[in-house]
């Protein structure tokens, strides 16, 4: 073996190693990107799925325009107080006005001891009443339609 053959081997080895390192780096980049992609998916799936909305159909004496939509949680409280899921700052809404909850795929509506009352399809909801999609829920003088 002559020296130039040895130098050729070293040179090719150097190039191979350079590309090996580049490949290693690119592989770890792809892995990293894939990981962040799955993390983002997880974060999206962690968000609570939207399970229903209340849409204003009759704003009564309030300033809320008809068509305003409020999303519902599995446990939703409506009232004037700041701790409610849906907060409505109107004088005819009591600080804790209405409770709604989802059990076994059915929405239940119950008055929470309000002054002006809660009605489901014009029936006073002093006890828990089962509501279906399309029913009208009245909170004080404000009327909502329950939708998906």
């Amino acid at each position, binding site marked *: 073996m002559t020296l*130039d053959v040895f130098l050729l081997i*070293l040179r090719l*080895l*150097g*190039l191979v190693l350079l590309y090996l390192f580049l490949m290693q*780096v690119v592989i770890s980049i792809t892995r990293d990107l894939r990981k962040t992609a799955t993390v983002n998916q997880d974060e999206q799936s962690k968000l609570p799925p939207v399970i229903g909305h209340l849409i204003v159909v009759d704003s009564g004496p309030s300033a809320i325009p008809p068509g305003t939509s409020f999303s519902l949680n599995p446990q939703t409280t409506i009232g004037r107080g700041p701790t409610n899921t849906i907060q409505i700052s109107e004088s005819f809404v009591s600080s804790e006005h209405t409770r709604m909850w989802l059990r076994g795929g059915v929405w239940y509506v119950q008055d929470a001891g309000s002054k002006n009352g809660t009605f489901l399809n014009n029936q006073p909801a002093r006890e828990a009443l089962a509501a279906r999609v399309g029913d009208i829920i009245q909170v004080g003088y404000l009327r909502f339609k329950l939708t998906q």
Partner: protein
Amino acid sequence: MAKQLVAKEIGRRHYRWKELSLLIVPLIILILEMFQLPLANYYRANINGQKIPFSTSILPTVHDLVPILGLVAAVAIVHILLTIFFPKADQMLLPIVALLSGLGVLFAIRNAPSSFDPNMGIKQLVWVLVGLVLFLGVVFGLRNMDWLRRYKYTWAALGLILVGITLVNALHVKNLDSPTHDQLNFGPLSLQPSEFLKIIIVIFFAAYLGENQDVIAEGVRLGPISLPPMRQLGPLLLMLGISLVLFLGVRELGLALLIYGIFLSMLYLGSNKLSYVIGGLAVFLVLGFIGYSLFSYVRARFAAVGLDLVNWPNWTQATLDFERNQGLQIAQGLVALSSGGILGTGFGLGHASALVPVAQSDMIVSVLGEEFGLAGLFALIGFYLVLLYRGFRIAIEAREPFHQLLAAGLTSIFGIQTLIICAGNLKLIPLTGIPLPFLSYGGSSVVANFIIIGILMRISHNTALEKEGLA
């Protein structure tokens, strides 16, 4: 609650396995090239037509490998310190930077015999070690980046004053054709403040844009086009103007180009408006044309771009004279590149280092392309791309606008510098004296680049901690 989580995360040791596994190959490459260099020198010294037989007696000893082994040890120490104190920081930056700066040291050692300074290799090694220390200093010291943002005007003034003094000094003492007229000498040390000014400019831009992002993105509508609000852009334009005047005044075209490029990319990142960039490029073309017709040295730089090397048999006497004088650097660089071919001549066996003027810094791409070939050049450009990718990734993941803009701006420095110097070496644009990050010989440049990597590392660590705290 959040603090407890952070404490728990720190308490649980994360070993930086990815960094370790990525470090192995670059360090082997460095040792291999260092091993090859004495053999190549022996080969060149003894070549006389016939084949040289190979014997184990000419193999380099461990003593010859000492400089690179020292660097390997230093990188290992940095890796261990990062593992202990910053397990969550980015793991890809250190391996890439170790490879690039190690190759920089190797090329300095290789170019030393044919340059003005025979100790160049050891000097570059010392600078890289100083850079690693400063890198650790930045990663440990920048606990809170707020003070960078808060004192942005102080930084800007400091940087400009420093560079201004240097340039005025240079104008008095030296002639403008000397390649290193923006140096500041402190006894045996000579610093190039402009290398640090670019970091300061990015900090200033990031701090200012981060605060005024909304107003600048809004723009002022003027008929169909929306102009950036001039009052908010004022300080930016002032900073830009002063640095451009400073650099153009002493014929530092490359630095002026770099600063303008940083300005445009950060304006785009901060405002998300392509129209600003297009407008900025139009202004740049107008300024470039004015500069071309006003200054003779700009015209001289452009003349080299027009050199037609392929058509050399038909050259006139005037072209030949030009090639031997002003165009020598670029012409010899291109010849060297082409003689390298695809696989290169092999490390230490090219001619560019001896024949191309200023091969160790400005024309490093030619030396590299000759000795590592097209394949090696592509691999190195790939490493720069990965470096940019990691930098922008850190910027995307950061939470605060200032951190995002800072990381992205600092990364763009690498991108723009690599682009300018590679394009200059390949005769696509006029050649300018800008260092190739980590590879070119030059202490200030290497140290400044390590500081940039340190800031990026710290931002990625802070982001990771914040995420743990929020999770």
